[in-house]
């Protein structure tokens, strides 16, 4: 059966229409990824609205294509300009830029692109093996477990996306949860925070919120005056040299892939962390750690493999638990929901082919990315030279269209604008937007499951404390709160 699903997915990708979608989406992802200020999250958020009318499988191919493309595309500007196109490529710049300065820019791009493709491909193995296992585990979940896993997801996302100040991440998550409360509640159809407005009663749509939070601030920030960098030239590739470099360092590729997948699985931790951790692991195991930061090939290979392996890793909890592993994966979860899929424990029962489709589409996207990235890299310098004051107003046009297409209402355009202002205020005060979005996504699940559980137990929280999985989540949540607020240190000090 699994083989049939996989073959079916292969044939779906190979249709001319879907190949075109893959080509365009990976290409768009690469371009958006390499332009600093246009993140992977924004790229997927923008495309989600645009795929609304596409056939479901084509839309999925397009979304995964733009995800893989945008995470991989960031390395080109990181190598040529020392400006990572996306935060995921920040670690790549450390060694990629020195390589470019000494005339090895083309070689560095070849290494980065090949490692990116390998990272995604290896992560697919984990998607195929771990997702059914986690899905089976999640079948044991009831209302209390779903409530706690939503809260756990938001808390850990808040803590990890606001390093050094988890408070801001948690506040952002609470704001998202509050937004999810707007409209008729799913248990009693009671209108909350609606002010008699019919549009608000039918809940806030996720896509305009997402586009507003991630797209709008980048558009507005580009209005500032800025200095322009001088792009370097891309030297010619030497395929034999590049490929032998990557395969000579196969242990680093495998290690970085595993790190990337594990980091991706943790809710809220993104591709940037995957890249940095893989880089750090390679550096700490190297016989010549001082060469890192001065153009060491292994630095580029590790960082790019690690950040791309996060793609598969981040998709594992999305598919099995409906809890996204990273900000782009959160947007992707919303897109899956929009296209009629219900990721979570019942996914393997309701849509058994979905996991296999996603895996094959990821493989297709990574192969397409490898080819396209190397072709595009010849024109990277020109793409990076596009005036942002021209590009960003046009991007806002797409934000408007993307928001409008969900329900064909002007109201959603206004929602996008309002959440854009909120996103701008949050980012300017260093509040991460990812927990906010996660709150909006997981809010209905948390609210309805908590109240369902309470209703069944006649308002008592005691049953939550009698279930082993709940106790496990509660212990992690308490430990995390104590750790992040510094109370754990105080407790340890008092005890000693």
């Amino acid at each position: 059966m699994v083989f049939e699903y996989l073959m079916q997915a292969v044939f779906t990708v190979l249709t001319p229409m879907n190949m075109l979608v893959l080509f365009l989406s990976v290409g768009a992802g690469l371009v958006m990824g390499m332009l600093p200020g246009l993140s992977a999250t924004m790229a997927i958020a923008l495309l989600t609205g645009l795929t609304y009318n596409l056939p479901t499988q084509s839309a999925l191919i397009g979304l995964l294509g733009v995800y893989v493309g945008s995470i991989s595309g960031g390395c080109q500007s990181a190598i040529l300009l020392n400006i990572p196109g996306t935060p995921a490529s920040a670690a790549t710049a450390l060694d990629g830029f020195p390589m470019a300065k000494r005339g090895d820019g083309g070689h560095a791009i070849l290494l980065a692109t090949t490692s990116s493709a390998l990272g995604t491909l290896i992560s697919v193995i984990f998607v195929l093996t771990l997702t059914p296992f986690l899905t089976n585990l999640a079948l044991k979940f009831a209302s209390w477990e779903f409530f706690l896993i939503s809260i756990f997801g938001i808390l850990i996302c808040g803590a990890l996306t606001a390093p050094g100040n988890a408070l801001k991440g948690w506040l952002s998550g609470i704001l998202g949860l509050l937004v999810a409360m707007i409209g008729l509640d799913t248990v009693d159809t009671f209108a909350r925070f609606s002010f008699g407005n019919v549009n608000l009663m039918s809940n806030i749509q996720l896509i305009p919120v997402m586009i507003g939070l991630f797209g709008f601030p980048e558009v507005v920030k580009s209005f500032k005056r800025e200095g322009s960098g001088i792009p370097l030239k891309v030297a010619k590739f030497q395929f034999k040299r590049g490929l032998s470099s990557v395969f000579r360092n196969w242990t680093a590729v495998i290690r970085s892939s595993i790190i990337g997948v594990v980091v991706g699985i943790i809710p809220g931790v993104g591709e940037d962390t995957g890249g940095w951790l893989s880089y750090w692991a390679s550096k700490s195991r190297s016989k010549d750690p001082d060469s890192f930061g001065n153009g060491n090939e292994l630095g580029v290979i590790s960082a790019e493999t690690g950040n791309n392996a996060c793609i598969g890793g981040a998709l594992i909890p999305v598919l099995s638990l409906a809890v996204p592993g990273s900000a782009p994966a959160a947007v992707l979860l919303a897109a899956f929901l929009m296209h009629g899929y219900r990721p979570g424990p019942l996914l393997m029962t309701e849509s058994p082919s979905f996991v296999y489709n996603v895996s094959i589409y990821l493989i297709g996207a990574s192969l397409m990315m490898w080819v396209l990235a190397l072709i595009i890299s010849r024109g990277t310098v020109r793409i990076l030279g596009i005036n942002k004051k021209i590009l960003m107003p046009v991007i806002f046009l797409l934000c408007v269209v993307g928001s409008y297409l969900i329900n064909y209402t002007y109201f959603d355009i206004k929602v996008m604008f309002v959440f854009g202002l909120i996103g701008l205020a949050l980012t300017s005060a260093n509040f991460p937007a990812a927990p906010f979005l996660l709150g909006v996504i997981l809010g209905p699940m948390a609210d309805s499951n908590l109240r369902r559980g309470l209703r069944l137990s006649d308002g008592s929280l005691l049953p939550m404390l009698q279930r082993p999985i709940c106790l496990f989540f509660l212990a992690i949540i308490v430990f995390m709160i104590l750790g992040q607020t510094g109370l754990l240190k105080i407790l340890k000090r008092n005890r000693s």
Partner: protein
Amino acid sequence: MEMKQKDFNISLVLVGLGLYTTIEGVRMYRKAARPPYNIEQFSISPGFMPTVLGAMLLILSIVLLAKSIKGTGFRTQLSDLLAWSKQAIHDTDIRLMVIGMVIMAVYSFFLIGLLPYWLSSVLYLIALMAFLRATKVWKIILISFFAVGLVIVLFQVVFNVSLP
């Protein structure tokens, strides 16, 4: 603006929001206790989650507020905020961003509903790019028509969806 000052500003807003949400949650509980809902138990009321979230928002934003005024004091931060607001009016970057957002708001809230999509979008692009002095005027006009044309062809012709 310093991060502590930004934390102070945003925590003030969040304290207000937390207060409002908590009160509104309690009001929801009271409303739900009456017919037709008749939900008298607070923990299963639709107002439960908003009240809990509002209270958490209030507590956490007070902690953030306390952190932001540590070592400076509430009044000092407040006067700094007022001083910054006066300065901000003359800041070129802030002025560019605010006026840019006003142009975007006019397009999103009014123009797009009043005029045909292509006209409102072309007007918006010309206005914003001209304000930002993105390039020469004739190039701005050309780029605006080209970009809107591309969007229309892509969505209305290729994807077969209707635009605003």
